[in-house]
């Protein structure tokens, strides 16, 4: 059997392909992005990036109803966006197998909250599958498609960052071609009019009872007998961490954790002297178990907040720590905008203008950090636009003329368009800057409707932001190159002082795109003439926040390994102390 070294996300793509998936959709979001990227590499699978998770979900559900095996993947907060169709899909059920992958982010490595999406399974009344490592992701996703078709239900397949982005050895198999299921028009199933939905709700409750029985016998749930003194009830990533600390204990390992397998729990509890629950974040299993009348503790030992790890379990359950060296003092090294990043020009100017900035989700959220500190709010995808309007209606023009909304191109398409319509329709006066870098940058360069290419890399139509803004009713649309600092500042001033809705399109491709990197390689790097540099007394170039520039021995220093040869630092240096390399002799 062939073995591969795969991340959880790669294993999900591979497993789905082997399961004969026909259609895969997604909107990028850490830690879920690589699932669609990898499944798109298989020629047998139709794969697409959608403008947002709701549209992605609905496309996949449509494909399932039409008879295809379909999969949609997203990060945990993406499922909030797709929650509307999720709850309807539970009632309609499926035709071809339909798997929803939610990649949660305990520890919030790259997210705005730590929501535990296992609760969505129970809330929407659909089965929940929680693999523990790459091999299980691969194996369980095939099972998920079977369960979906057998029980006429979408399946929630829950990953977490440490599963998605950890790699392990996976035994892979070949693809099994599954023909499309026959399509039948069944209005009482797929049109959830109140009259139909009432009947479907009975169906959902009956399905849940059947799934509850199945949970006791599925191979995804198992008892691993070991030392009977301690029994550990766990699921997902928590299992592998717990195994490290308790290699000899007995385990009730749940891969299919909702509906909860009551009979299996009883059998387990009868076989061990004492049992505890080890789970990351929410007391999801604990609530199920306590509701069944068993007083088993979990959160008494394991914190609600932050990512689980072997040491958190050792500390929480055994009240001990390994002997070790003291933690070292690292240096604060927060993520930063990259050298040559187009956003630098915008945030440097917004800092200079002392603007109130409603921000959004993307690389540019880093504008909130020093040296810019140029952001006041970041809530969720699209909220920059609507938050700005909220500021406007609350505080009026005197405040609004100093306020801008900043939103990325991909985020704008995701959830900003309706917000812009809200501003225009309700006679607002906000200025919205769309940071158009041609790509979804933060998650590692995925195309979006404004990129002109699709998930398979094929050419397609490009969304025209100016035409869109004008169609919505924005009469003033400016175009700026954010690397022309003075000109950008002038236009921002003009836009903000105009008492009507204004869109500023900040247009420059992400500095990490291959063609931009190529250009950077051909440009000479910049160097500092030490004699001319006033260093600490000036700080002009340091305030750009370029990672290539630092202060060494009181003077500015440009790290040649990082410099991309853009001229932002030259534009801001008042002493002409920055020149091209080779020029300073």
């Amino acid at each position: 059997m062939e073995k591969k070294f795969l991340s959880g996300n790669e294993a999900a793509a591979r497993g789905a392909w082997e399961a004969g998936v026909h259609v895969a959709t997604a909107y990028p979001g850490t830690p879920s992005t690589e699932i669609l990227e990898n499944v798109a590499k298989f020629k047998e699978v139709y794969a697409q990036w959608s403008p947002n998770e709701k549209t992605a979900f609905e496309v996949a559900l449509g494909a399932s109803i039409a008879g295809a095996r379909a999969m949609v993947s997203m990060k945990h907060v993406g499922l909030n966006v797709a929650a509307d169709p999720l709850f309807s899909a539970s009632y309609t059920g499926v035709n071809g197998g339909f798997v929803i992958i939610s990649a949660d982010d305990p520890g919030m490595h790259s997210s705005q909250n730590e929501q535990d999406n296992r609760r969505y399974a129970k809330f929407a009344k659909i089965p929940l599958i929680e693999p523990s490592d790459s091999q299980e992701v691969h194996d369980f996703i095939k099972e998920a498609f079977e369960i979906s078709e057998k029980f006429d239900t979408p399946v929630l397949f829950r990953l977490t960052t440490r599963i998605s982005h950890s790699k392990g050895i996976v035994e892979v198999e070949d693809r099994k071609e599954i023909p499309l299921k026959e399509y039948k028009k069944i209005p009482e199933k797929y049109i959830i009019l109140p009259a139909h939905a009432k009947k479907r709700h009975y169906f959902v409750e009956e399905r849940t009872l059947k799934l509850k029985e199945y949970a006791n016998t599925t191979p995804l749930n198992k008892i691993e007998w070991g030392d009977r003194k301690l029994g550990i009830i766990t699921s997902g990533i928590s299992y592998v961490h717990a195994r490290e600390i308790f290699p000899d204990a007995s385990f009730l390992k749940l891969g299919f954790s909702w509906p909860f397998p009551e009979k299996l729990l009883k059998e387990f509890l009868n076989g061990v002297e004492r049992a505890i629950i080890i789970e990351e974040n929410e007391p999801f299993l604990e609530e199920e178990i306590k509701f069944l009348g068993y007083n088993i503790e979990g959160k008494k030992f394991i914190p609600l907040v932050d990512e689980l790890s072997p040491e958190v379990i050792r500390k929480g359950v055994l009240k001990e720590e390994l002997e070790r060296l003291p933690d070292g003092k690292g240096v604060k090294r927060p993520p930063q905008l990259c050298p040559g990043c187009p956003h630098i020009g915008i945030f440097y100017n917004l800092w200079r203008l002392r603007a109130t900035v409603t921000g959004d989700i993307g690389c540019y959220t880093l504008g909130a950090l020093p040296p810019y500190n140029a952001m006041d709010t970041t809530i969720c995808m699209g909220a920059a636009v609507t938050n700005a309007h909220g500021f406007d209606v609350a505080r009026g023009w005197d405040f609004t003329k100093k306020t801008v909304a900043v939103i990325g191109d991909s985020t704008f398409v995701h959830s900003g368009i309706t917000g812009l319509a809200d501003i225009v329709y309700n006679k607002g006066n906000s200025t919205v800057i769309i940071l158009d870098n041609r790509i979804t940058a933060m998650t590692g360069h995925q195309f979006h409707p404004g990129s002109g290419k699709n998930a398979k890399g094929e050419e397609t139509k490009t969304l025209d932001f100016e035409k869109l803004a004008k169609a919505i009713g924005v009469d003033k649309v400016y175009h700026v190159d954010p690397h022309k600092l003075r000109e950008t500042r002038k236009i921002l001033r003009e836009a903000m002082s105009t008492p009507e809705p204004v869109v500023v399109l900040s247009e420059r491709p992400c500095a990490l795109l291959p063609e931009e990197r190529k250009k950077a390689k051909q440009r000479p790097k910049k160097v500092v003439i030490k004699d001319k540099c006033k260093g600490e007394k000036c700080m002009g170039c340091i305030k750009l926040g370029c990672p290539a520039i630092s202060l060494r021995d009181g003077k500015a220093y440009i790290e040649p390994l990082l410099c991309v040869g853009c001229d932002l630092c030259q534009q801001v240096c008042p002493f002409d102390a920055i020149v091209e390399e080779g020029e300073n002799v």
Partner: protein
Amino acid sequence: MSKTKNIIISGVGGQGILTASEILALCAMEENLDVKKSEVHGMSQRGGSVVSFVRFGEKVYSPLIEKGSGDVILAFEKAEALRWRGYLKKEGGVVIMNTLEIYPTTVSLGLDTYPENVEEEFKKYGVKTIVVDAVGLSIKAGDPRTQNTVLLGVLSNFIDFSVDTWIKVIKYRVPPKTVEANLRAFELGRSIKA
């Protein structure tokens, strides 16, 4: 059952840490061991601190290294060695650190200071400390992007894999045009004996 080896590879986003940890993990697989590797993508890669954990042995469960159980810290940047010191085991741990220092903007803005005497901060606890000019050696190897391979070469002296395994995986994993430079870089690193 042989004990699981825990290797911490740390540095700054963009230094080739993920490639290095991939090569190490594939070597373990080539040696018929179980292996897991873990790192975080996304926000943390924008010039921020990056770490990759690689664990291998007969059977590996968790992809995370527990504090106090690390065998080796392989640091691509000096301060990034110190950040992970608490992960090293109390006795017999090794740190391999690049001489390269990358100052973050927080230091230039006076919001933090760059740690001093990083070597001493390990030596005083009796940690075997190896300092490597990976930048210099990579240039000697013919390509400054082979710094990570130089450091893997140094690491190879502390791991029980055959040289053939390393060479086979490096050849397979690095861009074809850079194979020769990478193999030279690996050899230069490997010739550094503690």
